[in-house]
């Protein structure tokens, strides 16, 4: 089942912060985050693993609450380049290697 992302869209001014949430009804092994700009391919941001390990982007942070099967992506001091659609991809324990992506959160950062 597709993970649920919230909010669907957010508009920020440069320098503001935002949080994007991703929740699943199933036990998760890992959560991936990707950003896609209009007309382009998704780009990897980071992976959060069960047990707390993280791999990825240095300037964007995220958390993974294993008990609640939720992950949050934190956009801090947003820049114009942060605009795009953010997708979480979840990997559940009995579907090794297969990601299910959320519907996406559109982020617009204005000057």
């Amino acid at each position, binding site marked *: 089942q597709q993970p649920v992302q919230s909010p669907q869209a957010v508009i920020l001014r440069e320098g503001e912060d935002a949080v994007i949430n991703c929740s699943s009804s199933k036990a998760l092994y890992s959560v991936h985050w*990707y950003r896609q700009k209009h007309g382009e391919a*998704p780009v*990897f941001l980071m992976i959060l693993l069960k047990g707390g390990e993280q791999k990825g982007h240095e300037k964007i942070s995220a958390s993974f609450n294993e008990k609640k099967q939720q992950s949050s992506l934190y956009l801090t001091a947003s820049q114009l380049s942060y605009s795009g659609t953010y997708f979480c991809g979840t990997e559940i324990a009995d579907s090794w290697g*297969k990601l299910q992506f*959320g519907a996406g959160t559109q982020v617009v950062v204005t000057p």
Partner: protein
Amino acid sequence: DAGITQSPRHKVTETGTPVTLRCHQTENHRYMYWYRQDPGHGLRLIHYSYGVKDTDKGEVSDGYSVSRSKTEDFLLTLESATSSQTSVYFCAISPGQGPYEQYFGPGTRLTVT
């Protein structure tokens, strides 16, 4: 940038015709994936491959078949295209399975009329 190309980049075809999309990588990664992207659905996995001639189904595999005869190429075939298969198709590669980043190709926009 990861060395992934997709061809064709755009295609318009008629209902009932066969269509083959190609994904080519120069990274020698073992894992390759085909996704489709539609508004409101994010990315949905169609098929993936974990090695030459080793493939498995994703969540929306009906109406699609794949083949991988070489490490660098992963083909997606629509045996008889339908209007519901109008979508943007992305190929992705990964150096490992599971907790490894996926690198996406530029995408193929397919329109079935």
